[in-house]
């Protein structure tokens, strides 16, 4: 292989001293293919000369990251136009990936977009668009304007293709009519004399061939110019063969007065008409498969009523800034993410979380933009606006997932890339076999078989099989609050056989609540004294006790004296009575007899609860216990996971006894307890070493290392911040049922992709021999080809109706 040395610059972060620079330099110089690497600490730049035949910038970037540093890269999305099939997408992808400074480029045919990660010090988005244009396609950097433009462009494209279809249909119908006169079984049909005339036929077929069919010639020319082939090449070849052969026969008979035999004008015209019809359906279906994003975008409120300078004013959503005070009336949408300052209401969050029951919210609670205020008048403070809102983040994740490729697609891509030349070869062989052996000397017969092979073999269905399913599947999952970060995660999730659940915040609510009150006194009196005493404490357990007591409608008083004794508990004077609340050690410290309640204490602790002893005026008075409660849906969700045949494991930092108690309540059979956050990742690795495919489910912040190590990391959360970043899947609903939903959706999507690939592959592998053997007329091949793409897209769209 010849050496092609190129030099690339990489902007590096994370270097602290010269040793770091040397380390990177040494690491890079050791790489096979790198001829020279220089790292400049001050500029934080690495200049690397490498053999492009052996490696790419992505390898260098990976090496730098493996050495513990990071490379600054940027991501850009290009909106593409002019692609007709998978081969076009592959060509653009290859072209971009060959450019210096491109780390990775992924082209999505269905979305008509390219997601490019690049090194900004080497290449700019403008250069990328130039490159795409050189390859014969249109490209622009994605912005909100051209996003709208894409939709307009799509609508215009559909309209144009519809017009072309009508035009060619009107001109093809007389040709089809004339064809009816050729068959003995349809010979009773009257055919006007004009339509039987070869010159009339040619006059009707010519505009279809060259005006309507111009797009195929242009596409084929662009492809061939770039030394590749696509479906346009096949269509152009097939229809041209039919058209020019008929033209040749017609010209040959000039002057002889006879009408030529074996004309195929109708074949070329009908083929083009059907292919254009297929394109119309395909464009319409493509538009529908990106509906999830449109739906999400449509959720946003258009305006917001803000209070500025003590005046209420209605302003467009874009003008709302963080910190604005916003009024939301009943029935209105919450414009941006915020926090309730005044009022309370039930909020319908189904559009974001998929949870159908409205959630009660009051002062201090967080509200999510685009959710619906059902019944109360609330005043909120905007905390996140624009691209920061939960909805904007969700849209971003869904878009990225829809634009990403699943590993299963690589197979389809590599096949589509070599398909066309092979098909042309098969068609030529078919022609000669027919011409020389099957029907010796019958040029027309052999030509017909050649056309049928060329046309039946278009690989468009193959190119659409995976991306349309990924788009529909990830879009549908998002509607249920399951956000897949990429196609690869959507594919991986169905292989999961072990689910590790974090305890706090995942299985449980993550906030302690008052669970037990044991006293021989009157409960209300006892709780008044305990609550009033604990009111002054800032300890989370004390706050849980106070909240629990207040929920029982017990009015608390203000203690006349209060003392927090760290590590022991509290001592307070309430209504002239001395109240002690805390641990066994506190009781011992004040010489209070508690031996007779040790069994009660043990029972509570075995249940995973934290018990607090209370003494009033020097005598033991009772016990209050608090515990982190299991989410209402956890038990059912865990049983669903078990029904799916998955091993469910709970992981927690709690002691074995408490952990076992919670696990038993939740229905989890296996517990890994007393694990530090950093130990969780180790436990995940251990399970992976046993050959298990592990999904780690956590709240995304302290579980981040484990989420990253696991085959699939699922973050339970609100769909924002760290959780979104750390995990492969974000479960917006704080409900474990979403885990089963994610696995179910992944299985459905993968099954759908396999159906599509089976159909697309099967269609081509069956269609080619059938056509070569002469069982398929060219026009039937054209119809079958046009509808194969449509059927693949329609099958993918079934995913949009999946019920979880």
């Amino acid at each position, binding site marked *: 292989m010849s050496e092609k040395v190129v030099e690339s610059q990489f902007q590096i972060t994370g270097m602290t001293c010269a040793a770091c620079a040397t380390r990177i330099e040494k690491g890079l110089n050791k790489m096979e293919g790198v001829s020279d690497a220089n790292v400049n600490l001050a500029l934080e730049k690495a200049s690397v000369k490498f053999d492009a035949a052996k490696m790419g910038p992505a390898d260098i970037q990976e090496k730098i990251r493996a050495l513990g540093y990071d490379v600054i890269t940027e991501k850009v999305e290009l909106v593409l136009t002019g692609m007709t099939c998978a081969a076009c997408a592959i060509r653009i992808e290859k072209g971009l990936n060959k450019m210096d400074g491109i780390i990775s480029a992924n082209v999505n045919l269905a979305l008509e977009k390219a997601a490019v990660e690049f090194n900004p010090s080497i290449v700019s988005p403008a250069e990328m668009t130039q490159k795409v244009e050189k390859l014969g396609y249109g490209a622009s950097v994605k912005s909100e304007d051209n996003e709208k433009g894409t939709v307009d462009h799509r609508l215009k494209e559909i*309209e144009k293709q*519809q*017009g*072309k279809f*009508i*035009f*060619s*249909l*009107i*001109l093809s119908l*007389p040709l089809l009519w004339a*064809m009816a006169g*050729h*068959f*003995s079984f349809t*010979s009773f049909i009257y055919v*006007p*004399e*004009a339509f*039987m*005339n*070869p*010159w*009339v036929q040619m*006059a*009707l077929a010519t*505009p279809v061939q060259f005006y309507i069919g111009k797009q195929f010639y242009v596409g084929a020319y662009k492809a061939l110019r770039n030394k590749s082939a696509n479906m346009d090449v096949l269509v152009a070849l097939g229809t041209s063969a039919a058209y020019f052969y008929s033209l040749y026969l017609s010209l040959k*008979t000039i002057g002889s*007065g*006879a*009408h*030529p*035999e*074996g*004309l195929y004008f109708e074949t070329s015209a009908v083929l083009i008409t059907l292919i254009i019809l297929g394109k119309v359906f395909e464009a319409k279906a493509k538009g529908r498969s990106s509906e999830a994003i449109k739906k999400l975008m449509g959720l946003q409120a258009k305006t917001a009523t803000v209070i500025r300078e003590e005046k209420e004013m209605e302003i467009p959503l874009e003008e709302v800034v963080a910190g604005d005070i916003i009024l939301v009336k009943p029935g209105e949408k919450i414009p941006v993410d915020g926090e309730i300052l005044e009022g309370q209401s039930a909020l319908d969050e189904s559009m974001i979380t998929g949870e159908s029951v409205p959630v009660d919210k009051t002062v201090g609670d967080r509200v999510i933009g685009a959710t619906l205020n059902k019944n109360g008048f609330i005043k909120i403070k905007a905390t996140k606006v624009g691209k920061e809102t939960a909805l904007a983040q969700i849209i971003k994740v869904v878009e990225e997932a829809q634009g990403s490729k699943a590993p299963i697609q690589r197979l389809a891509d590599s096949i589509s890339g070599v398909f066309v030349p092979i098909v042309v070869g098969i068609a030529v062989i078919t022609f000669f076999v027919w011409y020389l052996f099957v029907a010796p000397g019958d040029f*027309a*017969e052999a030509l*017909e078989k050649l056309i049928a092979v060329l046309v039946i073999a278009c690989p468009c269905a193959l190119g659409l099989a995976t991306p349309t399913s990924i788009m529909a599947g990830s879009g549908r999952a998002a509607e249920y609050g399951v956000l897949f970060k990429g196609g690869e995660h959507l594919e991986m999730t169905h292989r999961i056989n072990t689910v590790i659940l974090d305890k706090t915040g995942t299985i449980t609510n993550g906030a302690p609540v008052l669970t037990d009150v044991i006293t021989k006194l009157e409960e209300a009196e006892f709780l008044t004294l305990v609550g009033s005493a604990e009111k002054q404490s800032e300890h989370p357990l004390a706050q849980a006790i106070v909240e629990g007591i207040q929920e029982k409608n017990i009015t608390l008083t203000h203690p006349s004296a209060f003392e927090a004794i760290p590590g022991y508990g509290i001592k307070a004077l309430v209504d002239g009575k001395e109240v002690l609340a805390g641990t066994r050690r506190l009781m011992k410290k004040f010489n209070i007899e508690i031996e007779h309640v040790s069994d009660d204490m043990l029972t509570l602790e075995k249940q995973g609860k934290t018990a607090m002893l209370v003494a009033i005026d020097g005598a033991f008075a009772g016990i209050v216990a608090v515990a982190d409660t299991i989410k209402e849906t956890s038990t059912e969700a865990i049983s669903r996971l078990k029904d799916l045949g998955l091993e469910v494991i709970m992981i927690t930092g709690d002691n074995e006894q408490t952990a076992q108690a919670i696990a038993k309540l939740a229905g989890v059979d296996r517990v890994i307890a007393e694990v530090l956050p950093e130990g969780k990742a180790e436990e995940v690795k251990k399970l992976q070493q046993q050959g298990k495919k592990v999904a780690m489910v956590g709240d995304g912040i302290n579980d981040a290392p484990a989420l990253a190590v696991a085959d699939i990391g699922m973050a339970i959360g609100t769909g924002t911040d760290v959780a979104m970043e750390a995990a492969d899947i974000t479960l917006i609903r704080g409900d474990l049922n979403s885990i089963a939903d994610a696995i179910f959706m992944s299985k459905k999507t993968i099954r759908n992709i396999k159906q599509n690939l089976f159909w697309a592959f099967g269609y081509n592998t069956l269609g080619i021999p059938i056509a070569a053997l*002469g069982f398929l*007329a060219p026009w039937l091949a054209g119809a079958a080809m046009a509808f194969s793409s449509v059927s693949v897209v329609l099958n993918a769209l079934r995913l949009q109706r999946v019920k979880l």
Partner: protein
Amino acid sequence: MKKWALSAIVYLLIVVGGYYSYTAIAGSPVDDPGHSDTEQHEK
């Protein structure tokens, strides 16, 4: 869409009209003995 449909119909009428005008002027075309590609399509 209408524009496309109308153009196609007008074109079709011109072609067919042209054909009949030609045959009216030049006389009836030769009977169609040769356009028997029936066999061709039926194979």
